[in-house]
């Protein structure tokens, strides 16, 4: 009994020590908020029926060039669903086919080749989400921007429409900016 208590106490202390380390990093928080957005977006976007092969087919979020975000997202979506579909996270490498994805997040590390990847997604029913400057002009549908220590996002409706995606007004209401033409 005593040993068990000690062991639990030790585990808690260890976690606590890790906490101190984790908290000095700002990056994880931003990544977690972006991950939460990626999951949340799913409830406010309508995909064409053909995007899901079966009623119980997974809702797949692809993550390119952002491993830390993929980790945060995997933690976040465990046992969760989007519009009745279980959520799956898939790490995508550049050049891989995008078929089967519902959302594709492209990390900043990829910003130099953003246009290339976005071109590959163009016209497909994949919600493209980025975190790079001028990404909307390059064809991204949603782009995260840091503002006042908050994570906000801009939306480009024409790009979404090309992918046959309908974005709900509630999502647009939260957007920092919405580009309509």
């Amino acid at each position, binding site marked *: 009994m005593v040993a068990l208590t000690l062991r639990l106490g030790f585990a*808690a*202390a260890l976690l*606590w020590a890790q*906490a101190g380390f*984790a908290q000095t990093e700002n990056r994880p928080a*931003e990544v*977690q*908020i972006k991950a939460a*957005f990626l999951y949340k977006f799913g409830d406010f976007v309508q995909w064409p029926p053909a995007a899901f092969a079966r009623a119980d087919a997974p809702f797949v979020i692809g993550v390119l060039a952002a491993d830390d975000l993929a980790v945060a997202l995997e933690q976040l979506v465990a046992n969760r669903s989007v519009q009745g579909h279980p959520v799956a996270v898939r790490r995508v490498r550049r050049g891989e086919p995008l078929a089967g994805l519902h959302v594709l997040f492209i990390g900043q590390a990829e910003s130099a080749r953003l246009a290339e990847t976005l071109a590959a997604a163009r016209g497909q029913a994949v919600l493209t989400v980025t975190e790079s400057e001028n990404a909307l002009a390059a064809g991204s549908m949603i782009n995260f921007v840091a503002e006042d220590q908050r994570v906000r996002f801009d939306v480009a409706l024409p790009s979404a429409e090309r992918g046959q995606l309908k974005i709900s007004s509630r999502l647009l209401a939260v957007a920092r900016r919405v580009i309509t033409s």
Partner: protein
Amino acid sequence: MGDVAISVQGRCALTHIFTLALACFSAGAAAQVQLAANLAELSLEELANLQVTSVSRRAERLADAAAALYVITGEDIRRSGVTSLPEALRLAPNLEVARIDSRQYAISARGFNNSIGNKLLVLIDGRTVYTPLFSGVFWDAQDTLLDDIDRIEVISGPGATLWGANAVNGVINVITRRASETRGTLAEAGAGNRERGISARHGVDLQGGGALRIYGKFFDRDNTVRANGSAVRDEWQNGQTGFRGDWGSAASGFTLQGDAYRGSIQQPVGNDVTLSGGNLLGRMTRSLAGEDRVQAQVYFDNTQRDIPGSFAERLNTFDAEAQHAFQAARDHFVTWGGGHRRAYDRVNNSAGLAFLPDRTTLHWTNVFAQDEVTLGERWRLTLGTKFESNVYTGTEALPSARIAWKPDPQQLVWAAASRAVRAPSRLDRDLFVPAQPPFLLAGGPDFRSEVAKVLELGYRAQPSTRFSYSVTGFYSQYDHLRTLERVGTTFVLGNKMEGRSKGIEAWGTFQAASHWRLSAGALLLDQDLRLKSDSTDTSGVAAAGNDPKHQFTLRSSLDLAGNQHFDVMARYVGALPNPAVPAYSAVDARYAWQLQRGLELSVTAQNLFDHAHPEFGAPATRSEIERGFFVRVKWSH
């Protein structure tokens, strides 16, 4: 004053402390997983408003804040459908809010509620709005565009070490959104059986960086009625306009903002009461190395009030303050600063009552320092004091000691011991009734500060990602409370009441489903006040305040399909003893439907199941608060 300190607390994202207790308590890999899970429960709006730094050390430190803190979010306010700042304060479970008539409210924390309540410090964007005339707040002169409020932080209990004298029983800190968060146009119009209002705001980016918004609003509130159905002459019209510009970021930047207002209110006899005023505030913040930062703020405030038959007042206030926070040593984070405020008060007296001298200059100077000591991984000790001088009693010491223990990432236990004072106001020293001798009532030349010594013990926990709660117990000892001492045929304001109060404040939030949130709050208060043996006061302890022993609130926020929202809030307020006001329950509800992007239609009902009820005052002179309906259209682009 401690305005800077409040802003620092604000910046550091106390926001969502309860819905997001975990984000704040976050620790370690396991907690990161839970944090992630918790973030998934937030709405898009909440995510967008979440400060990224809230998980960093600075905010984590504030989540550890050893105080009874409740945050009303801007979303809460918008979803409640309220149309005024005092009504929004009903959302805080740790406040007593009683409506007196169309424009007056009695608002307090931890007792002593009164139409001239004086133990609460209220700030709007760092500007102190309590009046040195009676150390309370003229609620009819405090307004802003409610849509632009980011949050209202409500601390019950003393906050004097950071905020200064008057923060005896609580601090209310209204924080509006930065201009960069209110871009675009918003227009609203609403009408109901009790009031009508219109408001508009426009926000733009400025060339060369920065953002600016301007707003304007106007409302017209109907008169209230007596219990016998007769009308009270208290119709009220008010207009306000203002702006806010922000350059740089919240951490390192500059803010310039101001407001101007004008209103008129009927009174039972005589000409209408008129109000007007304006203010201008500038604030600069700079991030230094690490968590170190400096902040400086100046403001000017003018407020005028003419109550024909009673008095007219013009008050000009200048305030300047600065603060520096830095890591003094590995385990010591020090915040220190000071400020000076100067108020020029001019009263036009009537035959009935007078503030003498009619013109006076009041000033307050303060210095403060606080050290946050990290004791190992789980304990944090905060020691601090403020010294604040005022023209009446000289320098007052306002020390506090707070300790927080975090046994695990989901729990926080805290305790605090504080001394706070309510410094004399003009009412205590300078009021005379009538204006010429022989006086019936006279300010006390020796009136001294009222003193509170307060012990608090609090516990906050988030046992699951869906449920969080907070419980605070307090024990306060009061001395030198205001009395009316009989000296010959005159009543002179004195300090011969003492006593104690104890109580419990509890609240919690339960996310029943991703689209349904339930919140509840409870207040229990037990006061024991008495006159000292040498007191000649004949009115007894009733003048100190009139408080319910219990208050309960329950709120439900439901998101329905098709962009609809349905919110219900119920409250039960126990009976007030003297003058007696019966206990009452009230249910408010709001239904909102977003017709299309940027266009929302909402219907709000107040006192849904109750024709009318009184909330404060004696039967013969008090107003009944009637059932109200309000339909509003909001357009934003």
